């Protein structure tokens, strides 16, 4: 009888692992982020703000910055996915084998160019500024993580499974839809979530070309040497990033094939 208890424990643990993440686990992140926001609020209210700080930290301005930031991230991520995923798929098809390395290199090279340089060049050489220019900069920066992970994810799919699919007469498109993509999802999502976080972070830079976002707040804090403002801006960016990543995680849990 003495051995009975530990056995039960083993069984329970397994149920926990095999079952989907418990509700409590889904709640951890929102709660943590909520507490962080609250702490930030308390911290700011305890400070005596001078006129410069007040100007930056009023609710309307912060809401606008956050909303702009979300728009920047959302649009750039959407565009990134629209470009990178189809491209990643194309570049893993046999008929692109020859051009694959060149295209990947070109994109890689574009990705490496510092966003700040892209923004400056767009502004100076083409007088291209604002939201649209910001999106160009962000998209160029985020394509590669998504592209590379899409490609690797697709390449990793078990040959036997692909063979079975093709052997059943699925067309290449069907094999792609029904088998390759679902099985590549975990690796692809890793890239997408990386891109999302990078986008949230980089979007702070586009304040320099009149594209708004939380960068406005951070740079205002930096340029006027107001620590509170910097902290609020940076903290909001990080909280936003974690929130977006958390939502991406929820989507991943929905999309991640269950049998794996």
């Amino acid at each position: 009888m003495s051995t009975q208890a530990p056995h039960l424990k083993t069984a329970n643990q397994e149920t926990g692992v095999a079952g989907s993440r418990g509700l409590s686990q889904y709640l951890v992140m929102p709660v943590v982020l909520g507490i962080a926001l609250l702490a930030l609020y308390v911290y700011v209210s305890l400070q005596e703000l001078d006129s410069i700080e007040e100007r930056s930290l009023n609710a309307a301005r912060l809401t606008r910055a956050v909303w702009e930031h979300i728009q920047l991230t959302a649009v750039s991520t959407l565009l990134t996915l629209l470009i990178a995923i189809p491209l990643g798929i194309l570049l893993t098809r046999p008929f692109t084998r020859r051009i694959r390395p060149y295209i990947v290199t070109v994109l890689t090279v574009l990705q490496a160019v510092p966003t700040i340089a892209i923004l400056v060049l767009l502004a100076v050489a083409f007088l291209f500024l604002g939201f649209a220019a910001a999106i160009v900069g962000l998209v160029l920066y985020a394509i590669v993580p998504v592209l590379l992970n899409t490609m690797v994810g697709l390449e990793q799919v078990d040959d036997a499974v692909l063979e079975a699919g093709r052997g059943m007469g699925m067309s290449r498109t069907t094999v792609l839809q029904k088998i390759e993509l679902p099985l590549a999802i975990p690796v692809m999502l890793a890239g997408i979530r990386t891109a999302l976080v990078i986008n949230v972070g980089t979007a702070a830079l586009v304040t320099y070309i009149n594209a708004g976002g939380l960068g406005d707040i951070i740079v205002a804090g930096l340029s006027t040497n107001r620590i509170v403002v910097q902290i609020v801006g940076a903290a909001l960016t990080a909280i936003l990033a974690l929130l977006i990543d958390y939502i991406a995680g929820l989507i991943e849990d929905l999309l991640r094939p269950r049998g794996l």
Partner: protein
Amino acid sequence: MTSADSHETRQVMIRLEKLTKHYPGQQRNAVDGLDLDINEGEIVVLVGPSGCGKTTTMKMINRIIEPTSGRIILNGEDVTRTDADQLRRRIGYVIQQTGLFPHMTIGENVATVPKLLGWDKSRTDARVDELLNMVNMDPEIFRHRYPKQLSGGQQQRIGVARALGGDPTVLLMDEPFGAIDPITRDRLQNEFLRVQSEVRKTIVFVTHDIDEAIKMGDRIAIFKEGSQLAQYDTPEQILTAPADDFVAEFIGRGASLKRLNLSYVGDIDPRPWPTVSVSTSIAEARETLRNAAESALIVVDEAGRPHSWVSPEELNRAGEGSSLKEIGQTPRAIVEPRATLSDALNELIAARYAVTLVVDDTGKLQGVVDIEQINDSIRSMRASAVTEARASLGGEP
């Protein structure tokens, strides 16, 4: 090489011409100039040593592997260069490594081809249930499981069910029953043969089990290394007239015993045996036995069904007043006409007097089978096989 011209009336469904596959970086061709005709509606079994190129050959038929050279002709049409997807949709495929889709449930796996073909949901569901039942897996229990939650043999059966989903006319099966226990396997084989007798698909079937090859194959292609055809013929011919030592060794010891699986008790005339009815008196029975060449009598009941064996000792021991009903021993070795000679032999080697009783459908005694008859039957098969082999040899240029 023994050619297979005997079924000239049948149409050739799959013709392989000088089919060759060379894997990059390897010294030898995995398949080397293979010529093979597979008739419509037949099950052709490929057997041969591990690594001889069976899987490679199969995969070239549905162009999962592109041949290095040679042609594949399907139903008269050269498909070596046509659209591979179109081709494959006409051909079911059971892959050696099972290759279930890990992200789909069992039900979804099996429904793959029906969905591809655009069947509606109720038809698809019905088909899935039908196929799961056919491979002996309760749909209620398994439909919603994922592949990793199945045992090895269960996974393999799902692989078979999945390949049958769209009811393809041509089926390639690479060791489909390799991981399945004998009972389930036997059931699957029988189910398969039953369906096949109705719908007559063209099936290429790889197995490493020579018994399975004999049971399932209309013809067997025995390969040596590099997909060299050692013999391509009916199971009967291969067992009775192996083309060379390689084939003989491959079918292994016990070829004659295996051969018996292909002949039926109904095909031979049972030998008569001295028989008396239960109503016969003991004295009369003694008299009958005295005049018989055998050392025991079979007692049959009113309907002519075997009732017991009686030996001379038993007859002698029995008192005058006793009836045949009460003495003797119940016979155990009894077979029906549709039993194989192998079944009969199995019974007789353990049976009293080394004979098996043969009864008809109603249970009425037809006679007995003993070793002499089995021996005769084997020997005549062999003689006719040799004649046939000679004839087909003569028929070739």
